[in-house]
């Protein structure tokens, strides 16, 4: 016993293992993660879950309230809402992930480099961000779509390319304060290259605000997709997404409330879960807080 005890204390724990352990203790975060996984899986396995196709109409049936045949009811073309929510989820989740991924990748790299190097490089890089900020964003996306044609992947990229700006600013601010700290000094005095310092020391320490902002970006992006699709720039009927289902549901909320409630609840659930998970991740990854 004593020996094994002694052994255990010898085992070092990496930052990531620490974080994992802390996350596991956070019940809300685990709840969020579970919900996300369940919804994600359901969307992925949609064809095995419902017997209907998302474009399959039953005009004679029309809009019906939830029943045993149609758990979430049907819309006014007689299409099964559950099926449409699941298939719509595929679009919404993909948009959320890809666009946010692009925003993260570009924004964090850009912000970290600008913030760490500073000086003239910083000035130029941030002025570029300012300029893109100043462009009316709708026109920017419309232009991209006009030039490259309408495709789903491009839509995701286009949204991502607009969303990275704020991310870059946040990260730059973080990095500027971080690079004054002793552990960065120490790393530098040990002769690590600039890129290694940014990658190994700066970015992991700036991750808190980044994660919080990411959880805010995902819902933003999902709603943006709905807006663009409504204008005819995004996905086209009969395909759908949560945002589109909700905006269609709002129009008939007095007559067929279920058309708004179910997609709305699904989207809210996902957003709540993302927030819980984001909160948990931030707490788990916050190095400074954990060393207290």
């Amino acid at each position: 016993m004593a020996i094994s005890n002694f052994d255990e204390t010898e085992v070092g724990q990496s930052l990531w293992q620490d974080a994992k352990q802390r996350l596991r203790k956070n019940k809300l975060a685990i709840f969020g993660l579970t919900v996300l996984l369940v919804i994600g899986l359901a969307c992925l396995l949609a064809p095995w879950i419902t017997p209907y196709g998302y474009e399959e109409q039953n005009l004679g049936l029309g809009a019906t309230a939830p029943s045993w045949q149609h758990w979430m009811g049907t819309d006014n073309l007689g299409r099964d809402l559950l099926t449409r929510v699941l298939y719509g989820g595929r679009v919404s989740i993909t948009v959320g992930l890809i666009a946010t991924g692009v925003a993260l990748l570009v924004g964090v790299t850009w912000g970290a480099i600008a913030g760490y190097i500073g000086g003239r490089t910083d000035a130029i890089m941030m002025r570029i961000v300012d300029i893109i900020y100043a462009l009316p964003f709708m026109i920017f996306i419309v232009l991209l779509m006009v030039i490259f044609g309408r495709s789903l992947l491009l839509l995701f990229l286009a949204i991502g390319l607009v969303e990275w700006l704020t991310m870059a600013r946040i990260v730059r601010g973080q990095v500027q304060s971080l690079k004054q700290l002793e552990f960065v000094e120490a790393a530098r005095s040990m002769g690590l290259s600039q890129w290694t310092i940014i990658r190994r020391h700066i970015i992991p320490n700036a991750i808190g605000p980044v994660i919080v902002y990411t959880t805010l970006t995902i819902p933003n992006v999902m709603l943006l997709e709905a807006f663009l699709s409504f204008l005819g720039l995004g996905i086209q009927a009969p395909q759908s997404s949560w945002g589109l289902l909700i905006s269609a549901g709002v129009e008939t909320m007095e007559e067929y409330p279920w058309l708004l409630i179910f997609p709305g609840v699904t989207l809210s659930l996902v957003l709540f879960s993302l927030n819980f998970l984001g909160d948990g991740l931030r707490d788990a990854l916050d190095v400074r807080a954990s060393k207290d």
Partner: protein
Amino acid sequence: MSKSCSLSSSACSVFAFIQHRYMTMHFSFLSWHAKGVLILCATLLLSSCGSGESRVESGNRDGVLHIGNFAEPQTLDPHIHTGVPENHISMALFEGLVSAHPKTLQPIPGMAERWEVSEDGKTYRFYIRKNAKWSDGVSITAEDYRWSWERASSPMMGNQYAYMLYIIKNVEAWGNGTLKDFDQVGVRVIDEHTLEVELENPAPYFLNLLNHHSFYAVPRHVVLAHGKMTDQYTQWVRPGNIVSNGPFMLKDWKIYHQLTVEKNPNYWDADTVKLNEITFYPVENYSTEERMFRAGQIHKTEDIPLDKIPYYRANEPEKFRNNPYLGTYYYQFNVTRPPFNDVRVRRAFALAIDRKTIAKDIMYGVVDPSYSITPPGLSGYNPPKLVSFDPKEAKRLLAEAGYPEGKGFPEVDLLYNTNESHRKIAVAVQQMWKNILNVSVGLTNQEWKVYIDSRNRLDYDIARAGWIGDYVDPMNFLDLGLSSNGNNRSGYNVPEYDQMILKTIPEASSPEQRLEEFYKAETRFMTDLPFVPIYNYKTKYLVHPSVKGLHPNYLDYYYFKYVSLEKEGN
């Protein structure tokens, strides 16, 4: 109206809405007692806000009609405006040389008390009333009409409806600038109150046209006081400047808020006019409008959201109006490029559309399925029915065109302008084509102006379109197929058809002969099938029961002079 007042009235509408909901939906889980309390609460809230009197109630008392009018009018100049909202206002402000019966639209005396037609049907002589006056008391003369028609058809004016006047001799040449002298046009002033009009060809519908806003007289003395004859958008249409000759005159115009007209004491038939005022509200959102109606803020809506129809049908049928409306909703093909340059493909697509299902299940039966481009019942004309729902024949035709079971069919898109009900129909038709022809058609929606531009440039495969008639005659629909008609937009260009519309029909020897020629022309058109009719429009709107004398008619024209408001008990 002050700001606080309008705030409280919107609060009223919210409570009225809640109350309405509780009274109409059956909350079985609530006991009767609880329901009573809820209704009581809602009623208390309702009565506690403002004076408790809705606009409809005060309007009924004071003879003020409040109506939803969809959009802010672009202008009140009858020689410039093109939209339906402007037309509603114009019809209150102005009256044509010849007016129309509010129900049948048959010509009845307007500014002219009588007229004579020559034997060959080409020359009309109008006798203008001696007591015809503008709202400022100035007399209306034959010269006013001659001058107004010169203005309406002048190439400098840019009037989109100028072609309506081309029915008059030489006006077309004047309108496109080849004729420089308006005196050579078939309009002659005989004396102060007598006007003679010579037509290009006999046209039985000429008297109906005179009721259209492009034929209205405008007050020469006022227009000239604010600019030259052909100056567009001058100050003459502003409140305080504009004078008119109809049953009403402009009182007040608050941009994007409301427009009010009041009774015109100088109108020749002022005794018939019962309303004191009419207020038009530009409410573009049908749901908002329906809520305003429910809250007693307007007597009449412009339209009604589709999904509200079952409710009104079941519970308040006396408020819901649904009458034939001279218009056709259709899909058109771009006939200039494959695959729709092949008539067999066009026909296959047309036969695979189940119009009955669309009319019944998507449009809740408020439209009629259409099998011809002209709506039925146009002055004795019965259009041929050459398209129907025939899946077998559709499949056969597609196979014959080289795409058996849809194999090898190129990628095509269906274009429509962004709108919920267009989208619903497009999605349903897309599915019909998929099921019957096994062809996948993509959907593209565009904002109105982009959509019009795409159609003008023939940058589409299939496009949704609609046409609302301006006068009750098959010509108004069949001339859409003219290669020179700007509203054609399908690339359909068949000289033989142009010949039929431009020569054979106008020169027909008798009205019966004319109808026969129409039948032939439409048969040709529906065989070539550049347009596929889907449904015939019907008006759908809500009217408060206190409104009397607002007669439905085929053009959805409102003759406000016959409208009265019934005072209710309180």
